[in-house]
């Protein structure tokens, strides 16, 4: 009887421990999406704590979280840029094309 009780307690604690463990995951919400010069592409309304943009070619990409952060832009093509928060929020990640011509980008958010 005592062993059964102990096993139940251990299983319960293990489940609680698992539930309490944070597991971040990355979602690629935009893949090789074309954005006009100076334009934006908005992602889904989700819980997130990172918005990241990575570009193709010579376009300059930017990342932002609508209403929460500024828009952070790469200054050298091909480098990833990200806005990183200390706690997750409900908002939309977005890509901004800082170039004067259409460019292609990948967009990620971390949840």
């Amino acid at each position: 009887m005592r062993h059964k009780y102990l096993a139940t307690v251990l299983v319960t604690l293990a489940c609680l421990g698992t539930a309490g463990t944070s597991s971040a995951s990355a979602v690629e919400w935009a893949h090789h999406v074309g954005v006009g010069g100076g334009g934006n592409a908005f992602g889904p309304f989700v819980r997130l704590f990172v918005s990241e943009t990575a570009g193709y070619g010579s376009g300059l990409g930017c990342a932002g979280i609508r209403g929460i952060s500024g828009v952070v832009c790469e200054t050298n093509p091909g480098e990833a840029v990200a806005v990183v928060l200390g706690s997750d929020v409900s908002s939309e990640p977005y890509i901004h094309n800082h170039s004067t011509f259409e460019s292609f980008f990948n967009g990620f958010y971390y949840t």
Partner: protein
Amino acid sequence: MGSRRGQSRRQSRLRRLLLPVAPALLAVGFAVASLAGGGAPAAATPAAPPAYGALEGPAEPTGLTLVDPHSGGPSPTGGPTWPASPPPSTGGSWPVTSSIRRLKPATSGLQAWIARSAAGGVCVMLYDGQRVEGVAAVDMSCSTPEGFGGGASIEVSEIPGMPGRVIEAGVVPDGVTAMRIPLADGSSTTQTVSGNAWARSGSEPPAPGSEPTAITGG
């Protein structure tokens, strides 16, 4: 005697055969020597790899509080925060937490950091001092591994609570003393580099689509 005459005849025939092709053979010899590096100066020494003194400093308090983004709530210190563990699938372009060192940008109101990227590049991180809904956003960019020697920089605009403000920050290797930044209005500004860091806060955006900014000094 007869054999000596025969030998002499063979030598003169060889000379007759080689004489017309001698210049071509010489040219081929020079080309092979050049390709093999024979033309390199004897005193040439390999260039020292780029270094960042700020990265080598002691691990003093960075002013960044490491947190679990899923724990919820504002920063316990009220300052900028950073995920204690790197998110998955960043492709290596993420600052190595243990390498984060605080920078001292000359522009007031800004906090910045330098770090090695997990992929092998160098990263710059920036906090503009603005909290929105109790959350502080840290902006970051990492160079490619190949771009390690060129530094890293970011530009931030459309900052909530700072309309019209444009902030730039970057890190450059040891020996660079100033950065010349072209602006959208055709002018340019020069920013002093201190401890591998430079920053600018103004209303004029940099030139659109600008390539890596010119580096002076160093």
